[in-house]
């Protein structure tokens, strides 16, 4: 009748994963596999940029102003050494994209992790405690939602500059992470809260109460693992969103400084040259950003659809 009758030995975790519907739907969707491949390649080459990139664009010794503003290699006047051309300071565009993606991904991952920590904790507490605690936490979340990310970023940026004058360049990334996390934790909090409301009425939670487990233990050991599914989906989609927000902020100049540019900074730098004909300086970082975000988004959408029937 049940699967337990058919299989005698319990499967290992890995075997169970390869036998799961999730893996099955992954291997049966070419688009998703392509998106996963692209994401992995971009993450890999960004993380290992110093080894993958042909040049280190920030090593002044390697720069030669004679090479500045060269078009992509296949165009007239292109230089085969610079595949995607160079910018105004003679930096190889391909290499700057890899180094830039590194910053973008770092900010993206860090802000997602911070937002997840805040959101999941708030959601669990609000959902489990209920009553006044719930009301207060959720109203804070509502207020939070009325501030756009850019406003928060400017606010955090300003406060940080005031508190720690002179060290802004080093802190820029953390300011960004904090700003993006503060503007996106509400998503997690709301989802986790509503799943917690459902889970806490289930009898396994009551069974844990009858055993005598204290509330924090019930939350962490019993409820948390059961509300994590949707959180992973949001995290994937939020990763793409965080990268976009970071690019937006950097484009507007409140993000990372030009000395260690992210994709958004690169697009801003290239923007100045767009109308003088050097389109490649801004278009290729833009394309890189689009491909990265699209791939991550596709993965997130697929994960949501694949997990959805099991969210119950």
């Amino acid at each position, binding site marked *: *009748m049940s699967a337990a009758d058919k299989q005698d030995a319990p499967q290992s975790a890995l075997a169970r994963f390869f036998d799961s519907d999730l893996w099955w739907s992954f291997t049966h969707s070419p688009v998703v596999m392509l998106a996963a491949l692209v994401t992995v390649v971009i993450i890999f080459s960004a993380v290992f940029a110093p080894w993958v990139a042909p040049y280190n664009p920030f090593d002044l010794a390697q720069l030669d102003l004679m090479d500045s503003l060269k078009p992509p290699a296949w165009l007239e006047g292109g230089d085969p050494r610079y595949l995607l051309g160079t910018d105004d300071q003679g930096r190889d565009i391909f290499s700057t994209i890899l180094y830039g993606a590194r910053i973008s991904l770092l900010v993206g991952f860090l802000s997602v992790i911070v937002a997840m920590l805040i959101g999941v904790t708030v959601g669990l507490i609000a959902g489990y405690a209920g009553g006044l605690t719930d009301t207060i936490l959720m109203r804070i979340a509502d207020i939070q939602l009325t501030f756009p990310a850019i406003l928060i970023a400017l606010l955090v940026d300003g406060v940080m500059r005031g508190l720690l004058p002179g060290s802004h360049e080093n802190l820029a990334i953390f300011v960004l992470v904090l700003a993006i996390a503060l503007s996106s934790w509400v998503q997690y909090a709301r989802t986790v809260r509503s799943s917690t409301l459902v889970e806490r009425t289930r009898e396994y939670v*009551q069974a844990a109460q009858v055993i005598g487990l204290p509330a924090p233990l019930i939350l962490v050991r019993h409820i948390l693992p059961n509300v994590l599914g949707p959180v992973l989906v949001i995290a994937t989609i939020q990763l793409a969103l965080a990268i976009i927000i970071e690019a937006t902020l950097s484009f507007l100049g409140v993000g990372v400084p030009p000395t260690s540019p992210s994709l958004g900074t690169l697009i801003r730098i290239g923007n100045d040259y767009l109308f003088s004909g050097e389109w490649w300086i801004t278009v290729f970082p833009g394309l890189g950003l689009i491909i990265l975000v699209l791939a991550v988004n596709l993965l997130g959408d697929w994960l949501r659809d694949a997990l959805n029937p099991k969210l119950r």
Partner: protein
Amino acid sequence: MTEAQDTPALLDIRGLKVEFPSRRGVLVAARDVDLSLQAGEILGVVGESGAGKSTIAYAIMGLIEPPGRMAAGEIRLKGERIDGLPREKMRKIRGKRIGMIFQDPLTSLDPLQTVEAQLVETMRTHLPISESEARARAVELLGQVGIPNPAERVKNYPHQFSGGMRQRVVIALAISCEPEVLLADEPTTALDVSIQAQILDLLRKLVRDKGMGMIIITHDMGVIAEVTDRVAVMYRSRMVETGPSEKILTHPDHPYSRSLIAAVPPADHRIERFPLVEYIEKAGDEQAKLDLSTHWLGQARDFGSHEETLLKVEDLTMRFMTRPSLIPSRRRYMTAVDHVSFAIRNGEVFGLVGESGSGKSTVARLICGIHKPLSGRIHFAGEELTAFTSRRAANHLRRQMQMIFQDPYSSLNPRMKVRDIVAEPIRFHKLASSNAQVRRIVSDLLDHVGLGASAALRYPHEFSGGQRQRISIARALATRPRFLICDEPTSALDVSIQAQILNLLKDLQEELGLTMLFISHDLPVIRQMCDRVGVMQHGKLLEVAETESLFTSPRTDYTRHLLKLMPRMKRAA
């Protein structure tokens, strides 16, 4: 099949096979099903969950969800073949010539439309009548299904009706176009016994009056005994036996039918044990008697106090807020438990019986501390539980009482392995000295509730409902409790599994000398399990009596009423 063949049967199914292809192979939900239904006849299809009963109804209606498909066989309505008809033609048959009643009256009505709108729409889709005629008929229909004040109630929305009334509305919808065949899929399963009896009466009357044929699909032998003329028994997608209800209920031929009927708890006398039904699910081997003096479960059972009364509940009252508000005067409350007092003696099984909403489950949750009472006292083993201010202070007493829950699908954490589920209370209360000992105790417990020790490494979803309930029992035993609360422990299970679980609980109770609070809406089960019984209604405890005297000489009208409605099966001597 020996019906006269000169006129075609109302509904005739031959060699039906329904299959659902999936990536793990083809699941055959029904095979070789032969059925025929005459006008004015009520045919019961009985079987346990997953046997393929509902599949038959969906096949008749042409509602099998793709990728599922009817792989073989034919279905004829008055001799005319209706399977494989184009969607448009089938739509004309559904509702018009075949009506269907679903299990859950809440989800089968549109919450945004009045009952009148739904009835009128259905009739005008299928019948050539005007709006005003349809409206008049809607009122008439509601009257026919026994809804008081039909002219007014017709303007109401579904949520304004109670569960039983809502099911009557669903029936009114199903019969609104005077169908020739009525399919009822577990029509009373979601309802209380008193309402079940009324609905069954109504269905029987409608079939007789209108000369319809009805197929009633149910897992409940009591329903079969009440209304059906003939029964078909399904087992694992096959129809194993068909015949007149009288004969199947008393002298079934097929061994499965025999074991199924043997597993139904008798209402009129108490039996020692349920006969073991090896036909259905491996019931677990008969356990060797435990020697409590050496076994882990027997250790530290000396709880100190050995007074006559283990649990005493005094004047317990509890209310739920039904409308929360910041302003106290705007809050609304529902009193779930209303000044309830009773006492449970050491070593006895005390039953609480009542219909849904009577507050019996709330009493259980108050006793084990999930809810806090508004007022009243609970004494356990000589100490007042309600006097403890912190959970931790009462932990030594909480350990001695454990609970088994109703729904085996939600009472186990799906993300934990069975081993960790059972080990959690042992670890938390530090009942074992080493990890190795914990593991040994867990496999011992699993073994004792009739699951192999290999179950420990699996996740709950790999088990059937009955097996999950055994895991629940193992977890409850893991704290070495002296008091076990069973809240409807078998109402989500099939009868054969119910018999096994009840046997297991009986054995454990005897071996370990457990005291039990056994909550159920099912009177025959109560009769089999309990020494004394309390009857609850609307949060009040109406009477408490020895089980046998409650069944033979009930003192209150409500108890008499409940007893009268209890489905009774005639049995072979």
